[in-house]
């Protein structure tokens, strides 16, 4: 308890509440020596609270204020003018009475002082607003009246005048067109000039007509009207805002004193956003926060309890993964359960935010700072709160589009279909999928994991490195000035990139295929390659090396051409031979600049589903080694495809997906972090 009050800037104010002042003085006098004595005095003072002279005076003031309010609301009458002006006049009238009434109590209470100052601002501002508004309103009225006074004959006359003008104009235009056409026929102007001239005449005709239209009093008054109405709206908004700002300024300078203890309010009302704000006198903010309460108790909580679900059962459904209806897929229970959790998390987040808001108000209030009024809350929301308000929709969409699917995948990987006949039903299975995966349990869906994992690594490293080597070597070759027909070669090297990979891969599939379609076999008599696991793999690597080389070729060519010639001269001068120039200058510079993109190539091939699937469908299938779930050239991604799309092992597919994600994220992160380009924030 402090003897003084403070505003938000830290300015000090004397207490007006004598009772509280006495209490604070006592608290201040309290030392170790007299603690007991002072404590007794405080108790005595508190006991006498109801008979304390200040408290009585305050009570008197409150009751008089109540009667005053009542009497005023009766005396509210209708004022002349528009609704807006009527309201203002009423406010002005009230402010005048307020000024009279609260003047008497200024020294008694800061609340009275605030009312008094507010009334003062209103009395100073409102007449000006009324005057400004009335001016515009009367001009609008006048325009409207003018418009109404026209008799039918007058309007008719105007119309006639206009059509006469139009006729004259049209005749003139026709005459001119005839003239132009004659000139053209006589050969003095070209056809182009004729067309242009006629276009010009038409345009001038239209323009003159529209000007005349605007000159007509009817149109003119319409334009004036819309202009004035816009003006009116603007003036109203701005002047009322200005007044509110002035009142807020006064309010900031007048502290608040707390006769009643509200310390528990944030804790007691935290669960019901809106209630606390109501207690603090922020009525409209309370209404706004009630929407949050509605969200929590009408949407989030019932949904989590299973009400209003599509076919699932809220959070409970997440545990059971099945309901009463037999045909409902476990997936639905899982997704709706996750949705329920997200909604609950959002609700809890809102409750926390609400609590923090209330708590801050309470702490400030105890110092003497008044809670914001509606005008301040509103302007705060549109300035400081603007970024949050704008990003909120995107954030909510991200939750549902990105986070829910990810969460579903993660949870899915902890389930098992348990080889039940119904493929859409599954049960919780803990880490069993991961255990099976890492153990490579033969005979299950996880059986071929390690084989496929190993081949995926080999595939990624060799195919990408090969592509980089080929692409870089070609770029280096073409960068040599002694090469002729560079454009031709460049086009050839770009072909694998220019032709859709889909087409090239299918062509090779046919070429290496079996039977009559196997081109290679038909020509060379070589036995089919696609039945031999190792040959298939080698062909795949060579094929991807060739396909991927074009991209690296483009990248390196660009960088190579940008290396200044004098770097090589400088190195040559220091004694570097061709090999050293390549290894110490060209390679580091090219790698330095393309590293992030090259890492991208590795991750691309790690997930290069299309070439694996199109070339041989992951085959040949070696059942004794790979089981029935994958083939010998499958990489992890095509393995997942087969698990989920062909065999309905969603859970195992999800587990493999997560393992892949971890690997890719980890490697990419490490790789990017270590590149110089990333360190220099060039990305």
């Amino acid at each position, binding site marked *: 308890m402090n003897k003084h009050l403070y505003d938000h800037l830290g300015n000090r104010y004397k207490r007006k509440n004598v009772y509280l002042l006495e209490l604070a003085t006592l608290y201040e006098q309290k030392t170790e020596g007299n603690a007991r004595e002072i404590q007794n005095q405080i108790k005595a003072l508190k006991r006498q609270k109801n008979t304390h002279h200040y408290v009585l005076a305050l009570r008197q003031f409150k009751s008089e204020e109540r009667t005053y309010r009542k009497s005023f609301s009766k005396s509210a009458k209708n004022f002349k003018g528009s609704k807006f002006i009527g309201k203002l006049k009423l406010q002005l009238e009230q402010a005048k009475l307020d000024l009279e009434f609260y003047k008497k109590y200024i020294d008694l209470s800061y609340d009275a002082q605030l009312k008094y100052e507010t009334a003062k601002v209103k009395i100073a501002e409102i007449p000006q607003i009324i005057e400004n508004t009335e001016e515009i309103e009367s001009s609008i009225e006048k325009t409207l009246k003018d418009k109404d006074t026209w008799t039918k004959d007058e309007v008719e006359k105007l119309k006639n005048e206009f059509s006469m003008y139009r006729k004259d104009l049209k005749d003139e235009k026709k005459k001119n067109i005839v003239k132009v056409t004659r000139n053209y026929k006589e050969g003095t102007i070209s056809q182009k000039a004729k067309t242009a001239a006629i276009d010009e005449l038409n345009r001038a005709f239209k323009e003159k007509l529209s000007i005349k239209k605007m000159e007509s009093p009817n149109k003119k008054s319409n334009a004036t009207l819309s202009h004035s109405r816009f003006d009116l709206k603007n003036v109203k908004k701005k002047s009322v805002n200005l007044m509110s700002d002035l009142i807020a300024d006064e309010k900031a300078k007048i502290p608040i004193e707390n006769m009643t203890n509200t310390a528990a309010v944030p804790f007691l009302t935290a669960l019901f956003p809106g209630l606390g704000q109501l207690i603090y006198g922020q009525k409209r903010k309370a209404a706004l926060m009630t929407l949050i309460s509605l969200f929590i108790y009408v949407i989030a909580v019932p949904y989590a309890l299973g009400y209003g679900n599509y076919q699932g059962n809220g959070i409970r459904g997440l545990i059971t993964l099945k309901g009463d209806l037999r045909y409902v897929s476990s997936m639905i229970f899982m997704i709706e359960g996750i949705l329920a959790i997200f909604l609950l998390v959002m609700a809890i987040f809102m409750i926390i935010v609400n609590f923090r808001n209330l708590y801050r108000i309470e702490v400030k209030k105890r110092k003497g700072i008044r809670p914001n009024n509606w005008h301040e809350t509103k302007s705060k929301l549109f300035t400081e709160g603007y970024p949050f308000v704008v990003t909120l929709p995107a954030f909510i969409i991200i939750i549902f589009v990105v986070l829910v699917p990810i969460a579903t995948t993660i949870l899915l990987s902890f389930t098992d279909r348990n080889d039940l006949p119904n493929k859409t039903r599954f049960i919780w299975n803990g880490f069993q999928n991961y255990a099976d995966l890492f153990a490579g349990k033969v005979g299950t869906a996880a059986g071929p994991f390690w084989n496929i994992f190993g081949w995926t690594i080999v595939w990624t490293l060799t195919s990408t490195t090969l592509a980089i080597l080929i692409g870089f070597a070609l770029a280096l070759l073409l960068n040599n000035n002694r090469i002729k027909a560079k454009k031709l070669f460049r086009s050839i090297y770009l072909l694998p990139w220019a032709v859709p990979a889909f087409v090239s891969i299918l062509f090779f599939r046919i070429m290496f295929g079996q039977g009559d379609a196997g081109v290679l076999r038909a020509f060379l008599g070589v036995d089919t390659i696609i039945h031999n696991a190792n040959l298939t793999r080698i062909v795949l690597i060579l094929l991807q090396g060739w396909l991927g080389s074009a991209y690296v070729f483009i990248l390196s060519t660009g960088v190579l051409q940008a290396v*200044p010639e*004098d*770097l090589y*001269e*400088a*190195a*040559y*001068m*220091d*004694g*570097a031979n061709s090999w*050293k120039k390549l290894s*110490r*200058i060209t390679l*580091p*510079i090219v790698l*330095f600049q393309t590293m992030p993109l090259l890492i991208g190539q590795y991750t691309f091939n790690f997930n290069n589903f299309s070439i694996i699937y199109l070339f041989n469908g992951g085959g040949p299938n070696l059942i004794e080694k790979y089981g029935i779930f994958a083939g010998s050239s499958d990489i992890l991604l095509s393995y997942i495809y087969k698990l989920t799309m062909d065999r309905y092992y969603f859970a195992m597919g999800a587990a493999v997906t997560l393992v892949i994600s971890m690997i890719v994220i980890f490697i990419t992160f490490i790789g990017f972090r270590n590149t*110089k380009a990333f360190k*220099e924030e060039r990305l």
Partner: protein
Amino acid sequence: MGFIIMARNLIELKNLTKSYDGIKAVDSINMSIKEKEFVTLLGPSGCGKTTTLRMIGGFEDPDEGQILFEGKILNNEPPYKRNINTVFQRYALFPHLNVYENIAFGLRIKKIPNEEVQRKVERMLKLVDLDGFAKRDVDSLSGGQQQRVAIARALVNEPKVLLLDEPLGALDLKLRKEMQIELLEMQRSVGITFIYVTHDQEEALTMSDTIVVMNKGVIQQVGTPQDIYNEPVNRFVADFIGESNIIEANMIEDLHVRFDGITFECIDKGFGVNEPVDVVIRPEDLVLVSNPAEGQIQGTVSSVVFKGVHYEMLVANEHREYLVQSTTMFPVGTDVGLCISPADIQVMRRVEVTECEEE
């Protein structure tokens, strides 16, 4: 047998010629450069100075003629076997290496042991005043600092000659002036020959022991800055170095030259009687007097420009306008007289010179 004590000729160019597509960029140049000399090749863009430098450095092969280094023919030696190093126009620093590794590049190529590399690089960093910058990326350095790294990288190989190709061209004026002084100090402390290429005559006058003025692949004049400034041998040199009044005149006889209808005394002789010559008078050598009758030439001030330390005025007579520098100002329209002392009249043989195109 008596020995004349003088610095040896370190580099000699004999009839050096180089053409590109049939156009002679360098046309049989003869020149000798001494040890520890600061030589500047000066001329407008495209006059052959850079080509000459590149031939000395070994990046271009001469079509004809010889380059001698300490008396040995150097023509067919690759750059790294010459005892010469170059600082390139745009520094040519390796962007993927830091300052230390840039300087150490040549040493690493030569497979010099690590400790020695470190010792040498650190000495170089100290020399170019870049202590503590060893680990910095070259991209993060300012233009002046990059310049120093380039110089350090060239000097670390301990060459006997350093070639500098407009090294200060990319710097702003103030930094350029500072670097000029620093370069000079570096040259004195290292004690090697600098061959410096520039088109900035002021830079050349400030720094050089010897200036070689070139135009269209031909050497116009070789001399100390004072010689070149005070006694230009032809109209091109006079025009290129500093500001000057160049006047077509007639050498009536020894010690007498006639222009603007007046015969002036001068100190040049050895020209033919009535030989057409060019006369150079520097603007600061023309003395303005307020009484026109007291001057040798009479004229009217036609423009005045304030240049800080002095005013630059144009004084017109019926033949031409004279550029005059003076600390006293005469308003436009004043009739004035101009005085010239005989020693300030520099008479040159007339040569037909067409200037290179400025880039």
